[in-house]
């Protein structure tokens, strides 16, 4: 056998050969285009032609113009809020399915959760516009339906789900009867409540205007749109936790809650982190939701990128904004992950418990205050572009240093 054939028979050679078509495809259609927009971002648009001289003019403009600054910060803020809401709400659901649902039922539950998300994204977002509209179901419900009717309906819904739970053997008959009795009571009150009284009046007199066409509606809609992306990774990590670990913790004298805090939560952290990444990154660049439900207060960076390229025909500026968006996302994530690791490490070093948590929390608050101050006052002292670049750069260097120096802790971050 020649050296060549021998080489080709190694695992490394086989693996590389096999992966190469896909890898080349990704290089050609992802790496090259990404490199192209980075390159383009250093050029400038002069009326109809593109000036091919290397310049930072686009970046200076993007970082100094308050409009761009505001858009980028708002995108980060909205995405951060969406991530917080989505992951916080998703965790209990994933936990319930993983720990309380019978194994053979689990895939059915997951299936139920994923179904709404295989339906047209555009239409789903649009339906939120309908739901949250001035004359949408929420506002019509609150302005037209009497308080007592709403209470009755909610109780009826609870009684109905209680019936379902009772039917599948997860609820005692007594609880079911209690739910039904409460519903009947509410209905009775509805019947006898005096006309024109508080109970017969609507919940609100005027429709809520703040539901639609602002940052709130964007957050609600995106949180809904990304729900399964948060549930699935958390569910997968929870599933991997050996149940004997939890029994061991209980056996060693920990309460249910402390077992959750000391064993389940740390072990579930990698899934939570994956959920955060999977929700945060794509939402920063979302285009459809801000356009459909955002109004002017909910505009995000993707809208501006689109406008630069298609409406203003300034492709270099569009490219610059895209590159900046990516860099900002990377910097924020780097900051978040490294600080989470550092604070958790610090809390442990300080002896854990309330004292450790307190010291870590104090430090966290201090650093956030510092960054805020730097953002507010830095531009005035150094000029906006330099200040922003210096700030982000410095923070990123510290983040990378922390990530490299500190090993992954027991929280899996």
């Amino acid at each position, binding site marked *: 056998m020649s050296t060549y054939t021998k080489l080709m028979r190694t*695992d*490394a*050679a*086989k*693996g*590389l050969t*096999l*992966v190469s*078509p*896909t*890898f080349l*495809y990704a290089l050609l*259609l*992802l*790496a090259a*285009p990404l490199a*192209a*927009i980075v390159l*383009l971002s250093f050029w400038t648009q002069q009326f109809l032609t593109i000036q091919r001289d290397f310049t930072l003019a686009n970046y200076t403009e993007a970082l100094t113009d308050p409009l761009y600054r505001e858009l980028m910060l708002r995108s980060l803020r909205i995405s951060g809020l969406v991530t917080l809401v989505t992951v916080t709400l998703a965790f*209990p*659901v994933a936990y*319930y399915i993983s720990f*309380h649902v019978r194994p053979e039922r*689990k895939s059915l539950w*997951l299936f*139920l959760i*994923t*179904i*709404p998300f295989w339906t*047209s*994204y*555009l*239409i*789903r977002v649009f*339906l*939120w516009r*309908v739901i949250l*509209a001035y*004359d*949408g*179901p929420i506002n*019509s419900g609150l302005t037209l339906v009497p308080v007592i009717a709403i209470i009755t309906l909610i109780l009826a*819904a609870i009684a109905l789900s209680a019936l379902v739970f009772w039917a599948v053997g*997860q609820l*005692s008959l007594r609880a079911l009867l209690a739910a039904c009795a409460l519903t009947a009571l509410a209905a009775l009150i509805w019947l006898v409540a005096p006309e024109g009284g508080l109970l017969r009046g609507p919940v609100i007199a005027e429709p809520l205007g703040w539901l639609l066409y602002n940052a709130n509606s964007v957050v609600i809609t995106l949180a*809904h749109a990304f*729900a399964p992306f948060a549930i699935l990774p958390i569910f997968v990590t929870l599933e991997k936790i050996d149940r004997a670990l939890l029994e061991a913790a209980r056996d060693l004298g920990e309460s249910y809650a402390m077992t959750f805090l000391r064993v389940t939560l740390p072990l579930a952290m990698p899934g939570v982190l994956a959920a955060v990444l*999977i929700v945060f*990154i794509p939402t920063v*660049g979302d*285009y*459809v939701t801000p356009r*459909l439900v955002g109004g002017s207060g909910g505009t995000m960076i993707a809208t501006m*990128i*689109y406008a630069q*390229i298609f409406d203003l025909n300034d*492709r270099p500026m569009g490219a610059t904004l*895209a590159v900046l*968006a*990516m860099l900002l996302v990377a910097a924020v994530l780097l900051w978040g992950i490294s600080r989470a690791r550092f604070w958790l490490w610090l809390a442990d070093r300080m002896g854990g418990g309330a004292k450790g948590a307190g010291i870590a929390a104090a430090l966290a608050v201090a650093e956030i205050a510092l960054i805020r101050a730097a953002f507010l006052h830095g531009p005035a002292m150094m000029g906006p572009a330099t200040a922003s670049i210096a700030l982000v750069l410095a923070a990123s260097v510290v983040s990378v240093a922390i990530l490299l120096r500190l090993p992954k802790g027991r929280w899996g971050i």
Partner: protein
Amino acid sequence: MRVNALAVFTVLYLLVLYAPIVLLPMFAFNAGTVIAFPLQGFTLEWFAALLNTPALHEATLNSLIIAILTAVFSTILGLFAARAATRYGFPGKAGIVGFIMLPLVLPEVIVAISLLIVLMQLGLTSGTWSIIAGHTLICTPFAIAILQGSFSNMDKSLEEAAIDLGETPWSTFRLITLPLVSPGIIASLLICFTISLDEFIIAFFLSGNEPTLPVYLWGQLRFPARLPVVMALGTILVLLSVALLIVAETFRRRGLKRVGLKDTGGFL
């Protein structure tokens, strides 16, 4: 078993998840021309209108072509990568596989504008082919995730046993590997098809003057008079995707059963 706060929370969560979908058929069959409450009465008018909208038919056809080709290409690329990732160790594996999976977390708008800019700078016209290329890029990670599951469920020594019994690597692939991962392949095809069919941003940036179904829908959303028809279309799409999804899930389960494994969870 007892019901607890968690269960109640989960049920409420599900209700909210389904809230928008529930509205869809309400307005699709609603006689009123405005998408608002209260409802006006029952009609099939909007479904009928779907039948005589040629632009819609063209967009649908275009989307179907794109989705089918995307599904095929991504699944083939996914097969290569998933196989390499589950069977072999090679230098730079984490980096290479990580890079291929990158579109999973990259904002789609970034993928879309970088592709668009390259096409524009090269002086090429965007259109169906560029959409397929973009969709293949973002669907391949999903294909890999599904196929990796199928491949890693399969004991490596099954293939070695076949070779040991005199089969060539190719006939081993045909007789052992393919039958055992075929449910994964079908699931991957269906999932990629669905993703591509629904993808908006890339199609929106690259479609030129051949809109896909979502791009067509986007255009319609601007005309209040067209909204009930959009609702009717949406209802049909929901039913179709649910049907596709059920088929995909059935295949996935059959695959598990075939290799004698217990069902442990859903997709991805």
